[in-house]
């Protein structure tokens, strides 16, 4: 754990007009760790991901990937540094098949494969891994919500990332589907991939995170082991509400 962290942000801030969407966020995520990020809507979770992946430029602060300063670098540079992400609102490439969607990452990712035939083969492998193989020739528009989320996942995996940022990949999924997504995340963990999970679904955070960070109004409210964070009165007050607390004490 003395090695350089895979992702490190230093005093990262981003303002939109007068609003501090993210302010002074310093995180350090060592290799192999899975970090959950929770927070109410508008807390700055997605903005944080966008700042790290180059889709937004920080107003101040730094982003270091493997110790390399990549503050404000364009998205593809970040991707080539071994970072992959999903989008909160799924962004499939319509007009291309599911296989082609995945192949793009293989063709243009950090391991840039040039031969189309190789790309197709590798895409098939990624699709098998994510249980999408049967749908390889479908158009993304024909997929169910769950499959579309899985495709988002598959596209990120096609990049064979070292750091994976998951932005609400479980929103709108049912119990069984969430389970299979969690299974996938666990598999990735065993491969040593560093993962950041931004999620509303509490169960997911609890199940896979080594550490949980709570964002509130763009700032880090608290961080620590999942169980500790969830029982933190500050967190309950700001975010979870008492219905959740009730259910937790009553239900489990």
């Amino acid at each position, binding site marked *: 754990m003395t090695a350089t962290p895979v992702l490190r942000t230093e005093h990262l801030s981003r303002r939109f007009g007068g609003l501090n969407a993210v302010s002074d966020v310093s995180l350090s995520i060592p290799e192999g760790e899975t970090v959950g990020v929770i927070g*109410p*809507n*508008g807390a700055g979770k997605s903005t944080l991901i966008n700042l790290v992946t180059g889709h937004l430029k920080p107003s101040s602060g730094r982003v270091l990937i493997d110790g390399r300063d990549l503050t404000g670098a364009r998205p593809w540079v970040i991707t080539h540094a071994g970072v992959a992400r999903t989008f909160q609102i799924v962004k499939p490439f319509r007009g291309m098949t599911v296989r082609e969607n995945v192949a793009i990452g293989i063709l243009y990712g950090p391991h840039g494969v040039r031969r189309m035939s190789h790309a197709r083969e590798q895409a098939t492998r990624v699709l098998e891994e994510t249980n999408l193989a049967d749908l390889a020739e479908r158009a993304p528009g024909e997929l169910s919500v769950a499959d579309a989320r899985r495709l988002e996942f598959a596209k990120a995996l096609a990049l064979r990332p070292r750091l994976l940022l998951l932005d609400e990949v479980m929103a709108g*999924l049912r119990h*069984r589907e969430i389970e299979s997504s969690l299974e996938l995340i666990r598999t990735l963990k065993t491969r040593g991939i560093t993962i950041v999970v931004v999620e509303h679904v509490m169960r997911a955070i609890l199940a896979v995170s080594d550490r949980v960070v709570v964002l509130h109004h763009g700032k880090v409210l608290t961080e620590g082991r999942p169980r500790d964070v969830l029982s933190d009165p500050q967190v309950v007050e700001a*975010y979870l*509400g008492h*219905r959740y607390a009730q259910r937790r004490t009553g239900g489990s």
Partner: protein
Amino acid sequence: MMLEVRKLSAGYGRVQVLWDIDLSVGEREIVALVGPNGAGKTTLLRTLSGVIRMRGGTAEFRGRSLGDRSIEQIVDLGIAHVPEGRRLFAGLTVRANLLLGGWRTKNTDLDRVIELFPPLEPRLEQVAGSLSGGEQQMCAIARGLMSQPELMMIDELSLGLAPLIVDEILARLPDIAAAGTSVLLVEQDVDAALSVAERAYVLETGQVTLSGKAGVLLADKRIQESYLGIA
């Protein structure tokens, strides 16, 4: 019953999404429509409000058929639809958004909805796009109420909101129903929906698989397993 849906089917393009849906909403009633995403809940609301044509079956509102009416005509009947994702007019002020809600009925009285959602009052002159998620949802519901509808259909009230906020907004629904506007609430947060609804329908892969009193459904084992994460 105010709204009577019988054997309704609908879909997009060549894909059929809904099969033989039976559903009803009574006076001053809160009815929840729950189920996983992709089950067709949103499609059902969109069909009822005329965005999508129905393919079969009937839907009647106070005895008048919805099937051959356009979106605008259905609004005239007294049905308000608060769409998924809220769809506020982001560049307009909260006041303008609310006035637009009352556009058809020419209702410009904001007091009632402000009373229901006091956090909106200081925001009236603010651009709707700058509101927080919770305030936006309040604004959307308030906008729906401005047409003084007899039935309000709310799609995914909890989407993207923190549980605390969801609770706060849900707590207003009984008041709304009591004042004469029935509510058909679409939710995937089953726990939240069933906590305010009197009756509920469970929609799965385009069909109603369960329905009944909210309390009964909450105790149902299938519901507990599939939707409440209680093993």
